[in-house]
């Protein structure tokens, strides 16, 4: 099967203005806390310039741009109870799939190989599998080599923060504009339940003493980054009964210290991964528990809701992983960077995203003028570009949006087993899709057959391909107006 990729044609094709209902007024998103989905006019233009091509720091950008991670940093200075170092780190790197560790030279080859083939590529991240700031020699060598070949690629790292204060100056020198720190606590007594030990200053520390050192280093690293204008994202693993309530406090602390974005991720604790939490029966949060906590955090540090908890060697748009296409044995021995695909793609995106933002603004206006107090949960099948452009049966995940008097906001994604594999529809997986989509009112996709449509309907979920290839927000705006507005859809021009 060929890899899912937004074709340039599909991006430059359909426009939706002629499909917008007449009388739609433009209006801005009322929620200032949908930070990651914020549009340029809502934020400082210098900040927008920094995040507009970064799929993790901007929900808007994640429809267009792809990241890749190179696993050059296997060494770590901390043990976390959700990570089993004998295998891939469970939270950074999905279990069950082999990750390839690379030397900086191999990483350079891979980055060029991917840049030549994946026009959406905009960010190179180093997220382990260990700690990028601790395994610094490898991280630095990789960044330096790549930056020399591909000048416009954004460099990004993920760290536990322990070694971070020692690296801030060099990160700034290398123009690393985006740093993610995993901060699971600000109270060392809670930290002691998450971290069995740290290695710092040439010895191993345990218990509250270890967590205290980690906490102080994390806070000072964050403050140093903020002082230098480097954007920070805070990742927190939500561990029910351990730090779930506490993350409200964490959110306040990081907001005060200038964190740009807060990403609360669910603990992954499958016993098969052999992590301490997996083996001790510590459960992860349910999707609704995660959403409830995120909703309580609204108003604090801005939240990221489009995280896919990707692997330390992921390649592609956030909802996909093309890593397996770019393993070392599949790459040519000698690669030369060819900027043409990335440049063409960027030109198309620049036009397209302007269109989409205008369409989005109109759609938000439609939702508001509908004057309903109700909310609508919509699941969208998309392969990128901000459009409804994936067939129902081909979707591996649905992006869920909520339309309410507050506007249209992205609330998360739900992974499903593909219903239609290799042209054959599987009834069993359809049951799975229906239960995964629990609570969703309407499914939007590019195409759907009558059979799955009827089955979904029996499960209480409507599905339609009437808005196929439209912008997501345009379709949701029209749907909302049709559903709750005083003017029915007859108003469509």
């Amino acid at each position, binding site marked *: 099967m060929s890899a899912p990729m937004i074709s340039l044609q599909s991006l430059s094709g359909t426009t939706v203005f002629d499909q917008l209902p007449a009388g739609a007024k433009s209006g801005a998103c009322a929620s200032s806390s949908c930070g990651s989905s914020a549009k340029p006019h809502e934020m400082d233009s210098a900040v927008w310039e920094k995040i507009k091509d970064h799929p993790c720091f901007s929900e808007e950008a994640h429809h267009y741009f792809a990241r890749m991670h190179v696993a050059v940093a*296997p*060494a770590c200075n901390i043990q976390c109870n959700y990570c089993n170092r*004998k295998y891939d780190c469970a939270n950074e790197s999905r279990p069950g799939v082999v990750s390839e560790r690379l030397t900086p030279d191999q990483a350079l080859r891979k980055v060029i190989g991917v840049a030549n083939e994946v026009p959406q590529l905009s960010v190179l991240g180093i997220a382990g599998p*260990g700690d990028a700031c*601790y*395994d610094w020699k490898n991280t630095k060598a990789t960044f330096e080599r790549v930056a020399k070949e591909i000048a416009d690629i954004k460099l990004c790292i993920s760290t536990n923060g322990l070694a971070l204060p020692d690296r801030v100056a060099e990160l700034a020198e290398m123009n690393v504009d985006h740093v993610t720190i995993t901060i699971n606590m600000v109270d060392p007594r809670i930290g002691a339940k998450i971290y069995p030990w740290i290695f710092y200053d040439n*010895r*191993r520390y345990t218990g509250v003493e270890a967590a205290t050192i980690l906490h102080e280093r994390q806070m000072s690293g964050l403050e140093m980054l903020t002082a230098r204008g480097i954007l920070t994202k805070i990742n927190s693993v939500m561990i029910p009964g351990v730090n779930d309530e506490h993350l409200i406090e964490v959110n306040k602390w990081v907001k005060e210290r200038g964190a740009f974005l807060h990403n609360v991720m669910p603990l992954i604790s499958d016993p098969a991964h052999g992590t301490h939490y997996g083996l001790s029966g510590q459960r992860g949060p349910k999707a609704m528990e995660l959403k409830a906590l995120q909703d309580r955090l609204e108003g604090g540090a801005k939240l990221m809701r489009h995280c896919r908890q990707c692997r330390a060697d992921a390649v592609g748009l956030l909802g996909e992983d093309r890593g397996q296409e770019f393993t070392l044995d599949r790459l040519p021995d000698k690669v030369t960077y060819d900027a043409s695909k990335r440049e063409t793609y960027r030109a198309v995106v620049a036009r397209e995203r302007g269109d989409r933002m205008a369409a989005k603004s109109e759609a938000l206006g439609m939702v508001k003028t509908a004057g309903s107090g109700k909310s609508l949960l919509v699941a969208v099948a998309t392969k990128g570009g901000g459009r409804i452009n994936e067939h129902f049966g081909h979707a591996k995940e649905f992006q869920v949006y909520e339309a309410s008097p507050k506007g249209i906001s992205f609330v998360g994604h739900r992974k499903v087993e593909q219903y239609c594999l290799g042209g054959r529809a599987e009834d069993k997986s359809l049951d799975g899709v229906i239960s995964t989509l629990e609570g969703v009112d309407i499914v939007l996709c590019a195409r759907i057959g009558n059979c799955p449509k009827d089955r979904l309907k029996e499960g209480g979920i409507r599905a339609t391909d009437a808005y196929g290839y439209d912008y997501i927000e345009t379709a949701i705006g029209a749907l909302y107006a049709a559903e709750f507005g005083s003017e029915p859809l007859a108003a469509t021009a």
Partner: protein
Amino acid sequence: MAFKIIASQCTQCGACEFECPSGAIKFKGETYVIDPIKCTECEGTFETQQCASVCPVSKTCVPA
């Protein structure tokens, strides 16, 4: 007076290699190996053996 690495346990993260103050640890073939001649067990340099203290898997860097 030397440590060794139990190869079957080793995750090959390489932390021991760059923490070793004696330069006694190298990647050889499939795994990291401690040169018993160079290994000082960190005596006189650090209060704990650096390889064992940083190793993510217990009982992997052990007295030979």
